[in-house]
């Protein structure tokens, strides 16, 4: 299957799966480790990928949340993400996709403007999170947030669906008129 679909399989019992897509292997690995260290009632599975589409030979459980990790220091990272977005089914964007921008701390090294990311997130109606994944403390906090989001997207939190979460996370700041 070249296109990722949200509800293509039955879920495994008490399991939640997250897919991290990004070009920075080391950062993704570190983030995955931080997430697995978190205390969570459900079982967590973290998949890492450089880009989509994923190889179809692997038997994987259904994905509950996709996080696109973009490194603000490299234009290639953004390009890669944009291409991968085309291999994602439209219904995923109802709260099961999230963008994570890293490297905003070192302003001088940023080659991608913040507005680009904001525009991207706004186009795909998905939440945009900022985090310096290189810093241990920020990474741990972000891991906590992602775990919580994942639980909600997998339906393990009674009363809250992914779409509800999306409505709650909707930021009132959209890209300014001149960018549109």
């Amino acid at each position, binding site marked *: 299957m070249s*296109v990722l*679909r949200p509800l*293509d*399989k039955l879920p495994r*019992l008490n399991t939640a799966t997250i897919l991290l897509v990004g070009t920075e292997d080391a950062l993704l690995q570190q983030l995955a480790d931080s997430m697995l260290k978190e205390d969570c009632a459900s079982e967590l599975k973290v998949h890492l990928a450089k880009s989509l589409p994923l190889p179809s030979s692997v038997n994987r459980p259904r994905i509950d949340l996709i996080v696109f990790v973009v490194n603000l220091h490299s234009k290639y990272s953004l390009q890669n993400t944009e291409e991968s*977005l085309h291999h994602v089914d439209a219904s995923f964007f*109802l709260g099961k996709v999230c963008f994570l921008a890293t490297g905003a701390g070192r302003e001088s090294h940023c080659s991608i403007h913040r507005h680009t990311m904001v525009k991207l997130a706004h186009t795909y109606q998905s939440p945009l999170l900022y985090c310096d994944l290189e810093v241990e403390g920020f990474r741990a906090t972000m891991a906590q947030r992602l775990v919580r989001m994942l639980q909600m997207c997998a339906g393990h939190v009674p009363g809250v669906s992914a*779409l509800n979460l999306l409505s709650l996370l909707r930021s009132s700041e959209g890209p300014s008129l001149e960018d549109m």
Partner: protein
Amino acid sequence: MNQQDLDPDSTTDVGDVTNTEEELIRECEEMWKDMEECQNKLSLTGTETLTDVNAKLSLLIMQVKCLTAELSQWQKKKPEIIPLTEDVLLTLGKEEFQKLRHDLEMVLSTMESKNEKLKEDLEREQRWLDEQQQIMESLNVLHNELKNKVETFSESRVFKELKTKLLNVKEYKEKLLSTLGEFLEGHFPLPDGSVKKKKKNIQESTIQLITLHEMLEILINRLFDVPHDPYVKISDSFWPPYVELLLRNGIALRHPEDPTRIRLEAFHQ
């Protein structure tokens, strides 16, 4: 859809447990069947990818549809609870009690440690109090002693003491003077008539000679009466050999300018 995996881990009667377990498992199986049906329906729908151009609009439309659907679902839904059979209630009750016990144990340990601390504080304060009391006692004792000493001072006693001293000294003085007088009388008598005088050559007047004792008395009195001019004129009543004796032994001194005047040497200065 929310999953509710409830497998009660109770250790109550096996009979009751199996019944509730069976019921719960049955309910779970039903839910799973529903899910499988939905899944089948879902797999029939096609996939749809987005381009940058149409993304926002189509997503928003989709969101509207889904939110409406969810809303109607919520409105239809009635709250369900797990069947409250006896052993389920028992298990729940046990859990509650466990929690309560845990909390109470925590409270107990906190109170105990607080008590310990308070006891320690009390002991410390007690020791401090004892020390302070000891200090106060010793200060009191000191105070009393000093008070006693001050009271025993009275003017009359001092006066009496001085009087006695004065009397003693006067007595001593009298004794000394009488001893001196006796000594002088014994060893330095006045010349008597056995010394032959030529009436014609030595125009001796019939002036009475005074004793050495009296001479010394005059000199002493003069020294103490008029300290700035202790000189006494040598009168004829002084027997010249005795004057010489006094002068030669350093008991009396001549006036530096006037040979007729002598004074007593100031032995007391």
